[in-house]
């Protein structure tokens, strides 16, 4: 790839395919029609009616339950819907064994083995923490257990730990895309920012977000500098000292990857110190943990991230009926709006259903795991969040990343995205392409994406 040296910002953003406003394309799959609503064709061959056992691991207690409970709820909803049609291929009803990810990494690995060896699960799904996915991934491979992680999105999993997965798939966008998406949103909305303050939870996610945001912003807005760094522990509730320090460095922009209860505590305190009046604020997860966790007092115009994955208001209205009907059914079942974990868990089961049906058409009867896997590889799927594509080389799901600006609308008792300012970015333009050298081969960057940006992105001149 040629390396332009004096591209303008607008040219480069156009080249990345960044779309802002309500006109963003949803994806190429729209022609196929919504598979979730497609009438079931009778399966080929004889299908056993034994239950299809699924292990769902997610956070059911502790601070991350705000992420995890919606995951289990959406998994349950999808299972109920599929079971109402008789189950997979109309015969095999989904039974779920749930487990609490808050038990800790070692306990999670033991639970995964127990689920396979004594409960004999057919599918393992869920997983939120990027601390857990690198420990669980290799075990899924070792147990030859078909697995669809719905988060645990660290680049590290497929860059280093399981570089050639067979049984393991993952749906959420990879972590590096999160910080880069916020950087692109920043460059597009506020190209004049120069002094940047950071506050991130001190673990792999916060470090990854800060690193990739900075890599991208340095290229998109030359001359930026970091004026304040803050690394509170995950689960911190008092941010007063960090807020005062940020104010003292007089930044143009604050970038944060705080999430869940941490973000709620942070923005409430920052409001009272007048922080939002004095600088722009960009986030990766302000609206991600749960859309309804944020109050109407949240300032408008904040670049509000959703882990670069999904907010239930987008694609909105009647433009993408799959989303409208998913949100409607989820709301009816659980009396709340889904978060991105919910969308992922829901999509995982329907995507598998699609793959099983395709495999059945080819092989007849209940397909072997290998047949299902070969259908999942390269599968393009219309999910509530848009079009998602499973890359065959690393089994990673890719969909356009999305971010928006907070705004209070009369329709919801919490802030949502300003429907006219939603930014979408084709994911292939901000992630390393297939076969890009992994860390530890020809380079020692933290991720393949970091090396790819350093090698191929131009420094913008104006």
């Amino acid at each position, binding site marked *: 790839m040629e390396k332009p040296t004096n591209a303008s910002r607008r040219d480069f953003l156009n080249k990345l395919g960044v779309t802002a406003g309500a006109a963003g394309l949803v994806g190429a799959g729209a022609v196929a029609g919504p598979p979730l609503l497609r009438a079931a064709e009778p399966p080929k061959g004889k299908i056993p009616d034994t239950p299809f056992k699924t292990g769902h691991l997610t956070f059911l207690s502790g601070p991350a339950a705000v992420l995890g409970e919606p995951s289990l709820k959406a998994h349950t909803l999808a299972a109920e819907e599929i079971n109402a049609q008789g189950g997979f291929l109309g015969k095999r009803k989904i039974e779920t064994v749930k487990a609490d990810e808050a038990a800790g990494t070692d306990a999670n690995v033991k639970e995964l083995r127990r689920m396979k060896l004594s409960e004999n699960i057919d599918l393992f799904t869920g997983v939120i923490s990027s601390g857990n996915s690198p420990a669980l991934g290799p075990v899924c491979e070792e147990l030859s257990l078909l697995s669809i992680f719905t988060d645990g999105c660290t680049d590290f999993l497929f860059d280093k730990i399981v570089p050639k997965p067979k049984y393991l798939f993952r749906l959420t966008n990879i972590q590096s895309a999160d910080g880069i998406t916020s950087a692109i949103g920043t460059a597009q909305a506020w190209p004049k920012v120069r002094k940047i303050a950071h506050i991130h939870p001190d673990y792999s996610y916060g470090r990854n977000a800060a690193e990739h945001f900075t890599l991208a912003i340095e290229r998109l807005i030359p001359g930026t500098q970091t004026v304040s760094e803050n*690394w509170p522990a995950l689960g911190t509730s008092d941010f007063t000292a960090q807020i*005062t320090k940020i104010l003292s460095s007089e930044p143009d922009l604050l970038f944060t990857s705080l999430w869940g209860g941490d973000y709620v505590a942070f923005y409430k305190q920052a409001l*009272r*110190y007048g922080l939002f009046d004095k600088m722009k604020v960009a986030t990766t997860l302000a609206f991600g943990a749960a859309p309804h966790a944020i109050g109407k007092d949240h300032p408008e115009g904040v670049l509000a991230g959703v882990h670069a994955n999904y907010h239930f208001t987008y694609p909105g209205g009647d433009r993408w009926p799959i989303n409208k009907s998913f949100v409607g059914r989820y709301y009816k079942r659980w009396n709340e709006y889904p978060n991105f974990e919910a969308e992922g868990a829901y999509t995982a089961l329907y995507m598998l259903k699609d793959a099983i049906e395709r495999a059945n058409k080819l092989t007849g009867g209940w397909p072997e795991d290998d047949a299902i896997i070969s259908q999942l590889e390269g599968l393009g799927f219309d999910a509530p969040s848009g079009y998602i594509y499973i890359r065959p080389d690393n089994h990673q799901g890719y969909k356009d990343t999305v971010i928006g600006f907070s705004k209070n609308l009369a329709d919801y008792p919490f802030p949502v995205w300003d429907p006219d300012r939603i930014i979408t970015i084709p994911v292939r333009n901000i992630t390393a392409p297939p076969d890009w050298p992994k860390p530890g081969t020809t380079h020692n960057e933290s991720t393949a994406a970091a090396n790819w940006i350093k090698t191929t992105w131009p420094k913008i001149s104006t």
Partner: protein
Amino acid sequence: MAILVVQVLNSLFYASVLFLIAAGLSLIFGVMRIVNLAHGSLFAVGAYVAAWLVGRAIAMGVPAVWLLLLMPVAAFAVALIGIVIEPLLLRPFYRRAEEYQLLVTFGLLLILEDLMRLVWGGLPLTADTVMDAIPSIHVGAQIYPGYNILVLAIGVTAAILLWVVIYGTRFGVLLRATSQDRRMASALGLNVGRVYVAAFAVGCFMAGLGGAIVVPSHAAVLGMGIEALILAFVVVVVGGLGSLKGALVGALIVSFVRTAGIQFFPEIELAVLYLIAAFVLIIRPTGLFGTA
């Protein structure tokens, strides 16, 4: 300069909350020789009850200033929980080895954390209407929330009251006597059981009050009790477990060093607190004011 003043106020605010938690933990250990691992969760219960009460009261149209009175109500609710827990759960274990006490209070921690999730759900619970009832003040170009000053005042008042009670009243004498020699106190006709319930309730009240007054400025979230417990342990390790003076000095040290760490060494913000604790443990294993 304004920044320095605000950072000092921030540290004192944080120290007030830390003191309320750590003093309760220390008091309970001082009198009953039990390390209550569920202490942080009782702090969290105080926060949740306060936030819940505030939510109810707002729904009923109670004016914002009156909501402040709900803070002690939440603290009393936690004290009531303490009155139930001590005789039922803890008393059978005083004569057993410390491991059993740790197991029981750790079990209690897990139960309380799950109960909070069952009752109040996984979403953060907020009560910031209370905070906005008190106007902000200006420190140079900086804004400082008036509510935080109130929290600071409550912390100072609680410390003074606790001193008066322990060193100036008959109840305080009974507490100290029991703390120094339980058997002798009992032999002299003291109802040790009642002293224990009272001490445990006071400790729980302080934890609950800490949670209640902090929730308007933060938010009640799952896991906040664990964070509070760890910080309270750092405080008592520095100050000395069982010493009120230790809890006060420990809270101030931890709070000011944390602020300094945030301001000057953000990369090791997490480690700074443990470094102080490790340092104190090496030069004075009983803590600055510990005796045992």
